[in-house]
């Protein structure tokens, strides 16, 4: 074939260069408040001037609606809305502000948030560069500079954030004294950040034990409550803005929300590269490297689980190997776009640990979730008799009353299951 010419249809956008590290403030959209708070602090220690955005007003959604395509998924809309709202607020010097977004490079639309955000910002904020945080070598001109040490710190931050979230959700619904769980959480976040400051963040066994102890010390009632798992598309699963404060709602409904760890998603992304080798014979070297990283992280996860078991107050986080095993019962681990096989895996693992009630949260029209979410429910019901799943679509116009009504239906069944026991 003859060598083809290249036609360039790209538009010019502001690039990120390393020197901006000292001049620019970087805005980060929020997804998980406590994880991101820890991450924000540790990035500051690295010399980045970062700020996690907290905006969650209706203006955020309206700005999102105005700036991205109608059919684009809800998470993108929320994120863009948060940026625009912040940039319009006058709080930032527009010549010296950048925004950061993660990119997985997977076969789902999420990898395209980056150009969509650029497009959304171009008209009003032509000088604000969009930074990509990715591990796939995308956007070489606008990538966040990643070092091995920073990667490691991020991994630890996620482990600690997970433990805090996990303990908090198991404490808050049962706290004897109102607000005690929140105090414990603030304490835990504070000493975790402190550990990073002192450079002692690698001592994860000590930090994790301290987190568990802090929460275990909170006085609890003996009440038995309905446990409800939250799974789904990563953003609406975790983000309060994305899921209309689902956790709060469940707690107000006298339930215990069970939100699986963020580390599971990280491990999922890593192991998919290993799976590509196994399924299709893709690059062996790449797979070997990823497998190594996986082993390191998984070993830490195992140790954390052991600590939970030893202490005994809390249900331990899921073991990722167990999740993989669960996935195999439902569908192939080849379903790797979006959250893919992780969704049914978590639903199965939840069912096996006494949480048959699940909210499967997804943005309206999320393609991978047709298959891994709604599509897998039937198989799960065949596997677990009590499985009680409600798939909820999140969307700028889907109303809270509609969503809550559906969740309440699931809760009514959940209460029956609980009473039966």
């Amino acid at each position, binding site marked *: 074939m003859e060598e083809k010419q290249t036609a360039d249809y790209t538009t010019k956008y502001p690039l990120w260069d390393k020197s901006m590290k000292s001049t620019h403030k970087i805005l980060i959209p929020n997804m998980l408040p406590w994880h991101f708070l820890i991450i924000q602090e540790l990035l500051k220690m690295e010399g980045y001037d970062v700020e996690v955005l907290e905006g969650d007003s209706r203006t955020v959604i309206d700005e999102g*609606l105005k700036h991205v395509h109608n059919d684009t998924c809800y998470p993108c809309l929320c994120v863009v809305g948060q940026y625009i709202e912040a940039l319009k607020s006058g709080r930032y010097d527009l010549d010296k502000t950048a925004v950061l977004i993660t990119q997985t490079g997977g076969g*789902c639309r999420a990898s*395209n948030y980056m*150009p969509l955000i650029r497009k959304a910002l171009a008209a009003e904020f032509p000088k604000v560069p969009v930074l990509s945080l990715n591990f796939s070598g995308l956007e070489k001109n606008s990538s966040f500079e990643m070092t091995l040490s920073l990667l490691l710190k991020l991994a630890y931050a996620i482990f600690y954030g997970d433990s805090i979230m996990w303990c908090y959700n198991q404490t808050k619904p049962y706290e004897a004294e109102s607000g005690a769980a929140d105090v414990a959480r603030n304490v835990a976040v504070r000493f975790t950040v402190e550990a990073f400051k002192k450079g002692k963040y690698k001592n994860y066994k000590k930090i994790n034990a301290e987190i568990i102890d802090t929460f275990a010390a909170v006085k609890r009632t003996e009440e038995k409550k309905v446990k409800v798992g939250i799974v789904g598309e990563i953003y609406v699963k975790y983000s309060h803005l994305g899921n209309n404060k689902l956790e709060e709602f469940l707690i107000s409904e006298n339930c215990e929300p069970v939100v699986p760890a963020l580390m599971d998603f990280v491990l999922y992304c890593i192991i998919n590269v290993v799976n590509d080798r196994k399924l299709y*014979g893709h690059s062996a070297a790449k797979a070997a490297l990823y497998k190594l990283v996986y082993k390191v992280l998984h070993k830490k996860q195992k140790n954390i689980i052991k600590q939970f078991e030893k202490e005994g107050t809390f249900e331990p986080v899921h073991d990722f190997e167990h999740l993989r095993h669960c996935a195999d019962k439902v569908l192939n681990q080849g379903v790797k*776009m979006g959250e893919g096989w992780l969704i049914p895996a978590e639903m199965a693992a939840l069912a096996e640990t006494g949480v048959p009630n699940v909210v499967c949260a997804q943005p309206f029209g999320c393609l991978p979730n047709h298959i891994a979410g709604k599509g897998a429910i039937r198989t799960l019901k065949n596997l677990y008799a009590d499985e009680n799943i409600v798939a909820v679509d999140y969307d*700028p116009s889907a*109303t809270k*009353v509609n969503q809550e009504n*559906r969740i309440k239906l699931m809760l009514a069944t959940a209460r029956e299951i609980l009473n039966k026991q």
Partner: protein
Amino acid sequence: MGIDVGSTTVKVTVVDGNENVIYSSYVRHFARVKETVLDELKKVKKSFGGEYAVSITGSAGLGLSQRSGLNFVQEVQAAFIAIRKFYPDADAAVELGGEDAKIIFITGGTEQRMNGSCAGGTGAFIDQMATLLNIDAAKMDELSLKAEKTYPIASRCGVFAKSDVQPLINQGAKKEDIAASIFQAVVDQTVSGLAQGRRIKGKVLFLGGPLYFLKGLRKAFVNTLKLTEENALFPENAPCFMSIGAAFGSVGEAAQSIDEIIKKIESVEESDEIVTGEPLFKDKQEYADFVKRHRATDLKFADIASYKGDCYIGIDSGSTTTKLIVITPDCRILYSQYLSNKGQPLDVIIDKLKEVYRLGGGRLKICGSAVTGYGEDLIKSAICADFGIVETVAHFKAAMHFKPDVDFIIDIGGQDMKCFKIKNGAIDSIMLNEACSSGCGSFIQTFARAMGMEIDKFSQEGLYAKHPVELGSRCTVFMNSAVKQAQKEGAGVDDISAGLSSSIVKNAIYKVIRATSPDEIGEHIVVQGGTFLNDAVLRSFEKEIGKEVTRPGIAGLMGAFGAALYAMENKKGETSTLGEKQLEKFTYISKSTNCNGCTSKCNINIITFGDGRKFISGNKCERGAGLKPVSADTDIYAYKQERLLKCVNGTKGKRGKVGLPLQLGMYEQLPVWAGFFETCGFEVVLSDKSSRELYFKGQHTVASDTACYPAKLMHGHIESLLDNGVDFIFMPCESYNLDEHCSTNHYNCPVVAYYPELLKANNERLNDTNFLMPYIDLNMQSNTVKKLHSIFAKYGVKKRDIKDGLKEGFTRLEKYHGDIKNKADEILKKAEEDGRQVIVLAGRPYHLDNEINHGINKLLTSLGLAVLSEDSVFEKGDIVKVDVLNQWTYHARLYRAADFVAKHKNVNLVQLVSFGCGLDAITTDEVRTILERSGKLYTQIKIDEINNLGVVKIRLRSMLAAIEESQRR
């Protein structure tokens, strides 16, 4: 006591200590939830007094319960309680409410389901359709029982169904048949949308208002589910079933006196959770100034009772309304009408034309006439009008009359929204609303009626609203629940009216026009269409864009006026329009039948006029209209359809029969797998040809009803293969498509990649032996061989055979691609010789399927165009660099095809997009950018299971008119 507060009604039930229902009531609440509940409670107080354990249920009851502190029982749960009480042997229950639909499976694993946030098929939907037919639901029910046939109608959301129903009405299909079709659509929606792979069988209970009152709907359910009489239960207390359940559900709650309950409900206050906007007008003075300003663009009138001389007739036969205008040569209005179609536009027009002749008393000389709009073809042929013109052209003509320097026109009608930009005195780009984001005029009307008000009064209410509610900007179904929420929060009718006006405007600006700032829209804006006669909408529009706009006094008649102007400018010689005497004798008979021209067997309508002339509609190609088809020489879709099937040799295999479902990825990879299996000794059996029937065949296994139509059709293909007795079905899972070396990555879309997983999980007939879905990356040869060998070794297939098979497969694929490209060259050459325009109808490989593209290729050829596809030309385009991450194989083809189009004269592009395709939200903007950089028009057509070529035709004709215009310059 149980109180059920639904989206449209309130039901109250009282049960005594012996579990007897002693009181039940059922009333509509017209959004006055609190007041209605109180009225009903007072009735209870009067009849019984006393103390009650009470529970509230229902979609609008949640807020009431939260704020009054009374117990809440989820409505499906309430139904469940009542079912166990009264029908312990029921196997399943179907409940349709005002805006909800639910299914409860009782035996064989209890399960309760509700419609998702995007689902019509409910009471409100039926009401909406009845409004469209200009009858009430009871009358519709009565008609439906006399139906002879049903038409396919989408019921996923009201907007879709409307665009199915409207053409049927315009084409003169019988109301009886339409009514029955609507009910059938509701049933189909319930079966596919709610049952999601689970069959509804055994003793089935039917609940809720619509199912209680509508016999036709019951009949459709019973027939579709194939229930015997004793298995279909229609309880007497169906409308109040939920409130009965809630009453039983409150057993165990503490009893309280009726006065206390009333007091608690009375104490419920409006919450501040709803977001509100600014009032439309500060005061009456501001409104008066506004009205005065817009008066300036009113046309003058001439008195038809005394006028003598020439005149011109313009008719706009729209989707819900008919507009007719008669003007003098100096553009004074002699006569005008803006009428509802009342289901049959032809009758309306004949009637009014007669009136024109009568009023004119022989003094009028009709010099010309023109027709535009949905009903253009029918009306033009019925009254022998001189011209039929595309709506967009008509509107432009009219707008120019009022504002010669107009650069932007927006027209919001009853059903559709059209916007066009004008550059250098010609239409530069056209934006039409997609079926999904309608929210147009008839939508406000439906709401007004739901609140028991006429549209005029309803919009007047909004003018002085203090706190217009923010309702978001999306489709009707969503809007319904947003309104529901606002009502729940206590917003008044005025606030809702103003909020709806602003929603419509936002929809237009941000979703249809897709403007990021008001400046993009233009400087000299003309707004028109019946909806803009509503001052609240007009004001919202001006407020939103921050500019004053021109709204002619005849805003609703602009299409007709433009048509009349066109007739005036272009008429030479005598008019052919029916004269007074001919009109008197005018009669017609409408008959629906199936065309036998080809295997598609389209539903067609034949209207025979009194003088023997015939008008045929509903046909997808010329054959239906009794014409000879345009030569397939200029249509690559026709060529590809034949060529693809030739990739299967049809050899009998000694090792068994493999079924290949011809849908999604198989439309691209059939050559590979046909070659592979035939070489390895299997006979290849293809699934049945796609059709609506095939879709229904697999509908019960569809797990996610918002997936794209190609995916949902796949379920039918699988069923057909299972019925054809193949040994196994083969459908690989492929994260990666073939790498064509023109993109960053080469993924398949998630649906194409993993749909086999969903099929297997949701079809109980499939198992590990009869459904093979290996994970394969065809770029990795040796791994693929290994994988396939591990599967087929048990059939005695050697590794050698696998290698040969794949080699043969790829040879066939290469040959197939080569032939398509050659054919494309041929068509391009021929088109150039004939001076024909070429359209690249660009989509995905599976858009080749006629059931999916609805024969748009044939429509294009019938308009005299040559048709190519994206895969036939993309290699002629350069490798493109785009802003978005270019990581899907099929998308990369789209970009390159667009590049080819951008660089060639006489070639244009129409992009086909399947509804629900999330990835195309990204590609469409990019393809548009590529085309517009070189000044080409971008046209997108969204396709779904609905089959409404009327709208598509208007779009394509507008596009052609614009192309012609730009070439003239």
